[in-house]
């Protein structure tokens, strides 16, 4: 991301302030995600009650997995930024070339802000609800427990930063693909399926059949949810945290490089066809 940090920070914060203006959407999102969180918990709990064999996660780890997933849902790269799509459609994206910035870094900043704005608005109330309100209401079994240990908390924080960057790199790939496909509707659908399934959002990845595990363990989307949530709950023990972080970092860098490569071609097309 070269030496563009100053302008990049400015772009992130501007985009962030823009998105924070939509408070009603944030509130509605909070309510929806609360509802889905409750449903997912009930389904998974029913599975656990009926299980005859020991499972790779215990119920409290599952509960943490679900609540963190609901809190951080907006950070998953499951959709493209509508503003960005509109700009591609009317050709305004080409004007981003008027700024003396590396285009990939510039767009990375815009996309990062898009990815992290919603979770801060929805995620914090969600965590408060699941960690504080639920026990007060006598539903302590279903509450989000604190991180398993200090090292789990530190590892979680680091993996969350990496998850945000990874989510940005994936979203940015989708954004760049709009330069060819323009509508982005198909891209949204593909992303939603890929991301919600392979990040662990729908079913926690360790609960998938054993024969799928080798594949699930090596694909990048688990860095978005599975890795941070399991570090948080101690399901990934502290000794393995560094290796997992490294795994996510490598995927993040690979996707950034891929994005840069494709963008190079996209820009060539843009400057030839005129946006």
């Amino acid at each position, binding site marked *: 991301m070269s030496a563009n940090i100053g302008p990049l920070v400015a772009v992130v914060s501007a985009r962030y*302030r823009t998105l924070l203006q939509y408070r009603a959407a944030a509130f509605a999102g909070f309510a929806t995600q609360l509802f889905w969180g409750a449903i997912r918990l009930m389904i998974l709990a029913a599975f656990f009650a009926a299980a005859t064999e020991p499972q790779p996660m215990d119920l409290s780890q599952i509960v943490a997995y679900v609540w963190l997933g609901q809190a951080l849902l907006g950070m998953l790269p499951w959709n493209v930024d509508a503003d960005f799509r509109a700009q591609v459609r009317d050709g305004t994206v*080409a004007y981003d070339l*008027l700024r003396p910035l590396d285009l990939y870094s510039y767009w990375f900043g815009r996309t990062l802000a898009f990815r992290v704005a919603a979770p801060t608005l929805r995620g914090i109330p969600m965590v408060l609800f699941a960690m504080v309100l639920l026990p007060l209401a006598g539903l302590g079994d279903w509450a989000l427990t604190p991180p398993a240990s200090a090292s789990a908390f530190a590892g979680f924080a680091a993996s969350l930063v990496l998850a945000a960057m990874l989510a940005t790199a994936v979203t940015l790939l989708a954004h760049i693909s709009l330069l060819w496909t323009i509508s982005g509707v198909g891209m949204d659908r593909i992303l939603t399926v890929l991301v919600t399934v392979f990040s662990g959002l729908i079913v926690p990845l360790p609960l998938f059949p054993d024969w799928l595990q080798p594949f699930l363990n090596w694909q990048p989307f688990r860095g978005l949810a599975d890795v941070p949530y399991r570090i948080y709950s101690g399901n990934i023990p502290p000794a393995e945290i560094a290796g997992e972080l490294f795994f996510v970092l490598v995927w993040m860098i690979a996707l950034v490089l891929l994005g840069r490569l494709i963008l190079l071609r996209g820009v060539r097309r843009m*400057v030839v*066809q005129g946006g």
Partner: protein
Amino acid sequence: MPQIEVRGLAKTFRVAERLPGLAGAFRGLFHRRMRDVHALGGVDFDIERGELVGYIGPNGAGKSTTIKILAGILNPTAGTCRVDGLTPWRDRRRHVARIGVVFGQRTQLWWDLPVIESFDLLRDIYRIPAEAYRDNRDRLIALMDLEPLLDVPVRQLSLGQRMRSDLAAALLHGPSLLFLDEPTIGLDAVSKLAIRDFVRELNRERQVTVLLTTHDMDDIEALCERVMVIGNGRILVDGSVDGLRRRVRNERVLVVDYDSAGEAGTVDAGGDGVRLIERDASRVRIAFDPDRLPAATLIGRLLAQGTPKDLFIEHPPIEQTVAELYAEHDMRER
């Protein structure tokens, strides 16, 4: 050395041709017929530092294409272009840091942010030193009367307010070259005048080079000494505004107002190619060619016949001149 040097600049777009009807759309899935559109067909010009040049032509003539190439966001198909020693599309980042660009049709401000935050963001993007930024910003705010707008999100601005903010935004980093693509489009009279005053001041006081495209010939008359006319991707005329006018028709109109209706009814302007265009109760309008009959002689004749209350000379509207030029070159909107 000229600040902008353009030689043989050409741009051809390839567009997929759509066949009409459902059958055509179906065939297009398998076999696309491509058609070449020649937006620019070899354009040459120089612009010296500190010039204010008008760039006009009908829609689709290649004005915006030229501006986009000069701004570094579009690659030409052929030709060369040097702006301050840089090739815009090759040295894009260094080039765009030195120029300002305003597109009248679309804002470059952040739609949801207040104006002042857009300015601060540009400071960071262009890495403008704090002191230079403060000076520039305060001067532009004062000049464009932006103080009351600073806290308003851009989406709530009127077109005129938005245009003033856009102009200021394009100049925060102190560019020595400004491209204005239809900056007065859709503006009311007051806003147009404000924009013109500002551009004139910028050019005269700060020696900023300006290349301006417009459809409003009043912009050209008010601002530009030099005008380039483009049509069908070629420069047709490049010279002074007076020269452009003379090229088509060298005619002036003398307007004479009288107090009493009687005088206007009887006045006779005489011969030498003089033409009476209009006569009503208290006013006559007389067309003449100053090369055949000097204005002083014509006025002398009229004074001998009565006492006008007022008289003044009009240029033929440049719109008419340009329309005639377009007709002469058979330029239609494509």
